[in-house]
């Protein structure tokens, strides 16, 4: 069934969108990732204009992160104080990101920016995930490895120290704020929640205990992506509500299915699979930048009220 998207002004198959939403939802449920970093490039591939894909994906992530965060609220695995600091940074970052996005859009380079960000970050994340899961598989074959202790670093010598009771930390508020800004910028440019950057940063840079990391990052993502949605909707008019609803219906159902599937399958092998997928998407985007395109020219029509 073809469905016309009122803002993107293209007609796409509704089942394709539901299917994509479902597929990415399953993956996000299985691996505990937001899925924005897979969904946005997939939307490019099926012909949604990049500006619409990025803005609409931010809107969809509001739904999936809210759904995920609810479970963490109940289990009390959210550090609200840390979440607030991350969120303040995130809101500033999102505003900066949208400014940068709109500036490059006026130069006609927004496509390049979004694609470059994707190639760089998907490449790094995919590569790291691949190496890490390969190590994990090797380790599971000969157990008995030694775990390194966390070291004290720069984080502990900065001013503005705050006590984060839920995380059991007494550290400066600057590192989480900076992490928040960085993730906010990415959220606005790439149409992602940024969990895939924030979660490692929270564990390795801020030193938060793993059990509160996911809940706290989801809490931050709700607000930052909601803010990004509003910014894109009011400055670019690029949030497509019909597209968002189709994606999130597929996404929330897929996420629940994925959570069930994930418990039954082996984690390391799954992660290698995910790493492969991330690297494939990255490779496809990189080729688009490196090879001479079939059509050198592109059109852009002024959007506006």
């Amino acid at each position, binding site marked *: 069934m073809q469905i016309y998207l009122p803002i993107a002004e293209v007609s796409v198959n509704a089942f394709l969108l539901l299917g994509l939403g479902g597929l990415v939802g399953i993956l996000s449920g299985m691996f505990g990732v937001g899925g924005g970093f897979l969904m946005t490039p997939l939307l490019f591939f099926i012909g949604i204009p990049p500006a619409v894909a990025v803005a609409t994906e931010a809107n969809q992530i509001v739904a999936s*992160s809210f759904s995920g965060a609810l479970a963490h609220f109940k289990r009390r695995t959210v550090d609200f104080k840390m979440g607030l600091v991350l969120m303040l940074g995130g809101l500033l970052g999102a505003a900066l990101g949208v400014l940068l996005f709109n500036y490059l859009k006026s130069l006609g380079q927004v496509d390049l920016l979004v694609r470059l960000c994707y190639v760089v970050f998907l490449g790094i994340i995919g590569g790291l995930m691949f190496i890490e899961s390969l190590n994990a598989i090797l380790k599971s074959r000969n157990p008995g490895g030694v775990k390194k202790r966390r070291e004290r670093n720069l984080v502990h010598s900065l001013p503005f120290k705050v006590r984060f009771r839920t995380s059991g930390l007494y550290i400066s508020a600057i590192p989480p704020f900076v992490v928040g800004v960085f993730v906010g910028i990415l959220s606005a440019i790439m149409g992602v929640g940024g969990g895939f950057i924030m979660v490692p940063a929270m564990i390795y840079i801020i030193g938060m205990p793993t059990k509160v990391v996911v809940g706290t990052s989801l809490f931050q993502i709700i607000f930052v992506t909601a803010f990004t949605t509003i910014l894109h909707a009011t400055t670019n008019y690029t949030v497509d*509500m019909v597209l968002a609803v189709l994606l999130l219906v597929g996404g929330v159902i897929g996420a629940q299915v994925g959570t069930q599937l994930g418990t039954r399958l082996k984690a390391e092998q799954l992660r290698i699979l995910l790493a492969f997928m991330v690297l494939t998407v990255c490779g496809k985007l990189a080729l688009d930048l490196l090879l001479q395109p079939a059509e050198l020219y592109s059109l852009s029509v002024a959007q506006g009220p």
Partner: protein
Amino acid sequence: MTRFLFALFMFSGVMLAQAEEIVLGMSQNEVAITATFDGSNILVFGAIKRDSPIPKVPLHVIVSITGPSKPVVVRRKAQQFGIWLNKDMVEVDAAPSFYAIATTGSFFREVLSETEDLQHNVSINRAISLAGAPKNTPNAQNFTDALIRIRREQGLYQSLEGTVALDQQTLFRTTIKMPASLTEGEYKTRIFLTREGRVLNKFETSIDVRKVGLERFLFKLSRDSPLTYGLLSIAIAIMAGWLASAFFQVIRSR
């Protein structure tokens, strides 16, 4: 004397032009973009009314549909630092978002002379270059050519030579397929009668293309009050997220 003959000739020409007149019908003068809109076929048909017998020289019919014009930025990619990125650009002041031209014969050879094309702006090239491509950019023509080529591939620009059926020099009909990616607005529809490349009679009407129902509501809201639109989309997302988690909790607790 020659002047008198010339005037007589002109007069008879005018008489001839008025002797054959277009009577038009259309399958629809409105295209409604609904949620399930997947393009639309417009059937343009009509007859030629005349008071005198059919002249020997064959008649030709041109049907053109022009969408609303908007400024378009055309960019060309070039390789820099090993990657392909947008470099040069040309801003076309106005290019129609849709342009279809259907004729009974091949365009310049049989149907319309170039002088008449200059006067009436019928061909696709005329419809765009008229918008005034910048003169200071070298190779600006390449950019307008690219614009036409890209839009042609998207089915937005169509030249349908020889697709107008003309029966008995009197009844004509053609079907023009409008793709799903239409922009809203008034689509100017023109029909020309030509003989030996000259325009005898012209008929103008318009097709109204607009989003209706939910599509219209959402589009208008997003432009008129973007803040409300943004808040509404967030509210929907929050609702959906909450519903999903509540729903699956019920399922799991069983």
